[in-house]
């Protein structure tokens, strides 16, 4: 049974090395996860990515996608600034919605997401 301990230690070391390879800030990743959950109509995921004040708005936004098929196109998010406790994140790319054969593209860059650090997590807490 000595070998299993060695495997776990090696696995721990590898994971630690992988964590050092992170190329994107967590705030930007949270917004990407939010948009992914939005187009997937995944309310379960959405509520864990938003602060309690913003969750009702996020769920309303998710409801607006219920009747359409939605997907993300060339999405990429980055931090653009910091304002008080908010980190501002802007995304490029589009949400492509489809209804009855008609496609519509929603430009992601028109929105700036406000990300706050709360309870040990970065959470989306508004947008402009």
């Amino acid at each position, binding site marked *: 049974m000595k070998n299993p*301990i060695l495997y776990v230690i090696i696995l721990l070391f590898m994971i630690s090395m992988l964590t050092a390879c992170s190329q*994107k800030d967590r705030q930007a990743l949270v917004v990407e996860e939010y948009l992914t959950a939005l187009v997937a109509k995944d309310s379960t995921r959405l509520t864990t990515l938003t602060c309690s004040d913003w969750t009702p708005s996020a769920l309303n936004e998710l409801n607006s996608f219920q009747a359409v098929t939605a997907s993300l196109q060339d999405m990429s998010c980055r931090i653009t600034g910091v304002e008080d406790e908010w980190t501002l994140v802007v995304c490029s790319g589009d949400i492509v919605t489809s209804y009855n054969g008609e496609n519509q593209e929603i430009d992601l860059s028109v929105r700036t997401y406000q990300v706050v650090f709360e309870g040990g997590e970065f959470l989306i807490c508004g947008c402009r």
Partner: protein
Amino acid sequence: MTLILVLISLVVALIFGLMPITRTRLPVLLGLSILAIFAFQPALPVRYLDFWLPTTSITIAVASWAFTLESKKNWARDDWLTVAIIVGMILVLGLNRYLQNSLPFTASRPPNILQITSAIFLSSIVVITVYLVTKKNGKWPIIAIGLILLIFLILKIPVLSYWVSFFLHKLTDQYSGAVSADDVRWLGFSYIAFRLIHTIRDYQAGRLPQVTLAEYVVYIIFFPTLTAGPIDRIERFILDLRQPFRLSSDDLVEAGRRLALGLFKKFVVADALALIALNGINAWQVRTAGWAWILLYAYTFQIFFDFCGYTDIAIGMGRLLGFKLPENFNQPYLKPNLTQFWNNWHMTLTQWFRAYYFNPLTRALRSWNRALPVPLVILIAQTTTMVLIGLWHGINGNFILWGLWHGLGLFIHNRWSEWTRPHFAKLSFPWQRVIQGGGIFLTFHYVALGWAFFSLPNPSSSWHILLKLFGFV
């Protein structure tokens, strides 16, 4: 469980089966089962709950083993190494949090490492307390089983699970306006509870074999049987676990056969039937008795192929890993009476209830100072057993009605069979076959009509569909 998860599990089981491992078989199975219990847990709307629930399952398993350790002997070196593996794996899964593209072993982002180490520390306190304080006799087994049943009740009673979810939402500072009774979905707990109660009761009765911590935890969270059984007995399970295993061509062929059958039954037949099976919406939309029967028959076969399919997949996967898991179904819809139906439907569940509820209750009722008539004893035992089985599926009026439907049916069959047995034996063989055929027809339809309670959300829907079936509405 989704098809993707099933296929990944199959590949993992096949790789494991083909690997020439002997000494590390147990720790590898332990590692795989720990990974699986986290990977299979679906995402939940309460932050981190999909990490804490599997962690709690493992903690409960370890605590239960500590509780059942005979004469509270010292832990062996291997048991300490098992603890190290379990803690190590939970920490590794927790480190998943810090990966940009997280590995698919957890449903969502795990808590931070400080919270996880605190939880591990608290769990250790719980396990050590259980080990030092509890005893085999007296109130401790009752308290242990009571706690397991309490968790079960919280998960199954909508009002309780709603308030638990509300409390958890407040704890994690999440929006509580979207709280639902369905938020706390604890993967596999129903089956884990059965295995825990089985080991605790057997420990109390002095029947529990001595097992190491690794053997016990693998038994409790064995990944092929985590979500849908079968409910194996630990003494049978560890016989397979302790056998040196090398995947033979026979194992491969039999496993392949069961897996192919299971995948076809579940993901082709059952999922196709689900499109027209009776549900809470179409029960009110159906217009004619003919279509009502079609919906009912579709549900009758959908539930069978769904469940039977999962069992075939579990048995096939178990075979790849070196386990000959017990069967759960044996052509139940072709049985000539309700007693035989229940001896051949979800057999491991009925065996569990027979061993840990029906037989002890019957013995207790018959040994009362005031002797109850035998038919009354049978009536009480059968109806309460079936109502409990119904409640295990869900705590609402319809599952109680379903349990009563089957409990009373079993009692009626018991009395009928007592009365007709001498007469049946005098009949010629052809007539016996005719009666048997009639029995199969009646039993099938009795069970099918019972699904009208099981499949629908409330008694009014069930009553409506029953009236529709016979043309009264």
